[in-house]
């Protein structure tokens, strides 16, 4: 039983292999980190998992169901949520409405209830708004509730994306660099947030360059280099791997947890 499983997944763009022959499995309720240098194919891998790209070969299983080639909205309906490396916030909406969009899969999105406000829509909307506000409160976004999303500072946008993803009550959460661009205090806050999320029973896969965060938070780490799996294992094992040390820190340097790789 695995929450997410990739079997020999490859993706080529015009003959160039962005991701080659990647296989791994994430157990339920695990925090699983994907690391690797820029251009290693981490985000491509997220796009393959979330249905933005279709694998050139290989299969993707979500909760032991083959979901290869399913469009993103179908995967979201199965309970997959994600955030983006550069925040893809709906800037034309208020912050709380952004979060409410995250709950879309639980709401009636038909035309008739929308225009007539019948069929329990009023009550559902009220509950959805309250839930979104509570979620924002939990993520320290309470004061931005009714602000235009476009007016939020960067750190708040990153958290808003996490709140939006959580609003759908997902079973699997993909986080693409949740701490990128955050200062040390904000990053620390984010670690706390992710811990609570994982404790609530959600499986988390994250891409992160902040090694301190990765090593402190995750139970499994997979290192991707040039689209291939270099090593996968517990954080301590991965940190000792000579090629990881070489790839990240230069051959002779010793691993330093505080170091961020470029």
């Amino acid at each position, binding site marked *: 039983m695995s929450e997410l499983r990739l079997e020999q997944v490859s993706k080529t763009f015009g003959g160039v292999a962005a991701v080659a022959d990647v296989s791994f499995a994430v157990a339920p309720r695990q925090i699983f980190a994907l690391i690797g240098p820029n251009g290693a194919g981490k985000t491509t891998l997220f796009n393959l998992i979330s249905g933005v790209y279709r694998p050139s070969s290989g299969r993707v299983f979500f909760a032991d169901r083959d979901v290869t080639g399913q469009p993103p*909205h179908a995967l979201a309906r199965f309970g997959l949520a994600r955030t983006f490396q550069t925040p893809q916030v*709906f*800037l*034309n909406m208020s912050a709380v409405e952004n979060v409410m969009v*995250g709950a*879309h899969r639980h709401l009636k*999105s038909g035309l008739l*209830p929308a225009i007539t406000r019948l069929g329990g829509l009023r009550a559902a909307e009220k509950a959805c708004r309250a839930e979104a506000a509570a979620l924002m409160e939990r993520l320290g976004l309470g004061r931005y509730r009714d602000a235009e999303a476009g007016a939020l500072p960067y750190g708040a946008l990153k958290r808003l994306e996490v709140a939006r993803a959580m609003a759908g009550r997902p079973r699997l959460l993909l986080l693409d660099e949740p701490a990128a661009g955050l200062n040390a205090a904000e990053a620390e806050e984010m670690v706390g947030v992710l811990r609570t999320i994982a404790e609530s029973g959600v499986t988390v896969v994250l891409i992160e360059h902040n090694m301190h965060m990765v090593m402190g938070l995750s139970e499994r780490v997979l290192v991707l280099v040039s689209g291939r799996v270099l090593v996968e294992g517990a954080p301590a094992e991965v940190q000792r791997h000579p090629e990881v040390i070489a790839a990240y820190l230069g051959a002779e340097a010793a691993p330093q947890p505080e170091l961020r790789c470029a």
Partner: protein
Amino acid sequence: MGRALTLFRHRHGGLAVLALVIALLPLSLPNRYFYDVAILMGLNAIVCVGLNLLIGFAGQISLGHAGFFGLGAYASAILSTNYGWPSVVALIAAAALVGVLALALGRPILRLKGHYLAMATLGLGIIIAVVIATEERLTGGPDGMSVAPLVLFGVALQGERVWYWLVGALLLGTVWLAFNLIDSPLGRALRAIHGSEVAAEAMGIDIARAKLLIFVVSAILAALAGSLTAHYAGFITPGKVGFLHSIELVTMVVLGGMASTYGAVAGAAILTALPQLLTVFKDYESLVFGVVLMATMIFMPRGLVPTLARLMGRRT
């Protein structure tokens, strides 16, 4: 003024203000000619509120909505006048026909984005206009055709006063439906698509379905307004079907303010009245619309109502 805007922020408050305007406007309408202008304003506003859902909220351009307007008008005219259908039935059938057509054509067209979508809808509108202008046997060709009056509960609706109240009530209803839609899960989905398609899809929104749905809704509203315009005027010509009318409709939406329902109403009202006020410039109507469109884009890209609201320090 500030207080009025606060009212506008609340859905029912804004609706009450609009109802008040519609109710009190006749006091300042001195004769039938002014009623006529007001009715045309209302009919255009119905089209623009629908078009604004598509363009302003969902972010999908259409340069072919005059085609749906015209198709609704001619279908209703032909069914009621040539085939003797009861006009209300003809009107509903015309709207349904346009809805089905928009559903069938929207599927391939709405895959396109940006300029390509603009070109495709432009082409669609032109094709409809050409068909209507050339099918002389059915439509009377370039000369147009006369249209039977609208009969409601056995009474033929004639005279500007009756029509004024009918159109006013329908506009109010349309605005109410639009506000409900915008503030629903579907409405948020549409705005999310406008904001970021990739994120909207990742949230479980079926983008193709949502776009198609709003395309059909806006086409049906255009068709209804088209049918009503034909029955009201008692006459229809291909002029209202063509490319230029599509551009006029988009100009109304842009001037009033994208993603502002009251903006769409205001834009439709202003640009319906403007040519009447500037009868001297009758020959330059298209030029005036072009200048308005350009000036809006340059000096007031948000459009009239959102810009005014911002100046007042409020959001709409």
